[in-house]
């Protein structure tokens, strides 16, 4: 937006300049026809000069627009120049924090709290009496997976049909509890504005207070395969929990016979 010509062509488009050029040429042509002067031929070069001047000017301006980067992507318009990230967030920590500030996600339903608040097993105990595990863990085959194992990234360009965690949980509950999702009035059955008792706001209880120091108490030679601590105690819970290593509680009686790789289906040790 430096010169008048640039301004005109930016605001009105190059077509504007062409029309102006044409009108100038037409006025000259009109004067030429109506002149009483016999040596009409002398004005022809003037007309040609004006035509050329406007032609060159508009050509230059149009080139300038193409090379200054602003319009450069019009040349390769078939590929958007903007690079999009693979992952579009609707569950980023920033967003969740923002929602908390707005107090949008306070869950405070006493019935829900009674079965869900605290350990994972309580919710599972109540629900497993009513429905099968795979009714909720719908795509788990050999091994039960936690919701967030699959439903982490919403609007995944690779698989749009897979909702994010927020929608996955809502729609899965909605599948049976239609009465709780009848309309906007029903949101308040679970969501209240009281943050003091909100599940979403409260930090999840840590079943394990294990730290790195706790691991090396047993793994004196370091962790085999260089695995992260979290994975190690995910996969080998039973090693400690059957023998009482590091004061680990022994397995409950109803857990007898379960393989060591199924623990994490229900139990989610936080941190690590």
């Amino acid at each position, binding site marked *: 937006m430096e010169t008048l010509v640039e301004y005109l062509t930016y605001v009105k488009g190059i*077509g504007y300049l062409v029309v102006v050029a044409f009108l100038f040429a037409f006025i000259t042509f*009109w004067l030429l*026809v109506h002149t009483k002067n016999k040596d009409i031929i002398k004005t022809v070069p003037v007309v040609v000069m004006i035509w050329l001047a406007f032609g060159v000017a508009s050509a230059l301006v*149009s080139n300038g627009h193409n090379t200054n980067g602003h319009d450069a992507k019009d040349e390769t318009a078939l590929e*958007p120049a903007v690079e*999009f990230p693979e992952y579009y967030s609707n569950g980023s920590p920033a967003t969740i924090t923002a929602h908390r500030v707005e107090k949008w996600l306070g869950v405070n339903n006493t019935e829900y709290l009674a079965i869900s608040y605290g350990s994972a097993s309580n919710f599972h105990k109540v629900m497993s009496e009513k429905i099968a595990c795979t009714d909720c863990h719908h795509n788990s085959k050999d091994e039960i997976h936690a919701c967030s194992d699959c439903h982490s990234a919403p*609007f995944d360009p690779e698989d749009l049909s897979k909702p994010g965690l*927020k929608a996955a949980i809502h729609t899965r509950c909605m599948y049976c509890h239609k009465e709780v*999702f*009848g309309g906007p009035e029903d949101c308040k059955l679970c969501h209240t504005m009281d943050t003091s008792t909100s599940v979403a706001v409260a930090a999840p209880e840590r079943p394990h207070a294990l730290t790195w120091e706790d691991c090396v108490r047993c793994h004196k030679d370091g962790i085999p395969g260089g695995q992260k601590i979290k994975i190690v105690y995910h996969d080998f819970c039973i090693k400690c929990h059957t023998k009482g290593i590091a004061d680990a509680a022994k397995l409950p009686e109803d857990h007898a016979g379960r393989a060591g790789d199924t623990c994490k289906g229900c139990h989610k040790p936080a941190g690590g």
Partner: protein
Amino acid sequence: MKMNRRDFVKAGGSLIALSLLGNTASAAHSFTGYPDRFGMMSDLTRCIGCRRCEAACNKANNLPEPKTSFEDTSVFEEKRRPYAADVQSYTVVNRYKVGEKTVYRKVQCMHCEEPACVSACLVGALKKTPEGPVVWNEKVCIGCRYCITACPFYIPAFEYSSAFDPRIQKCFMCHQRIVKGIVPACAEACPVEAITFGKRSSLLKLAWTRIWGEPDRYIDHVYGEREAGGTGWLYISGVPFSQLEFPMDIGTSAFPELTKDFLSMVNLTLVSWPAVFGGIYLMTKNREKPLHGEEKEEEDKL
């Protein structure tokens, strides 16, 4: 109206080559849209009318706070429009009773594949971006409001409440967020992903996958697949769209198609008429001159 080199040659060609009528007009139909353009899909069977999308939209676009809160459900008593003098929003959710079902319909700009508003705009202030949203350029707009009359969905609105700096107001699919890699605010806020964001081609597949997956739940129609030449915002529903006040009479051809052939001739007319009439004038004048000369010579002889 931004022109690249090809467009300039085209325009120049129309000026010079009067005999090649029609050649330039046919080239305009070859473009079938940017391949990776984004779109949105509303699944009306999932929407529970919580109005989180309205609240998120209001916040993301820095719109003035509404008179009643977004928790207020009394707004469903009347059918609202996205932008009116007292309701300044880019999207609204309306409630419909269809038989025993309660259906919520989200209303916003449809982001047409070939938007009527873009073709109606005299100065190119509205633009279909390669990313998918139809956006509006404040610097270019002259406020003629042709886009408002052109839109088959009655979406663009004029900010009559602002005397000195009125803007065209409509949903821009959060273009400012999309280019930064963030999903549009309404899709982000939706608790049940009734609004899905993604590439339009993928969304179309998803829409038909859902319909074919649960044929009893959905009707066999993706609104926006072909309506008005295809729209960037798709809808799937469990009840006929005609009962949700969707415009059903808009046809399947893009609105600019209806005027493109005619409008491309305007420049040629502008060029050819002065030349033709000027030529005729020149011819008749040259024929008169010698006549006058002969008469004078005859008078002299007499």
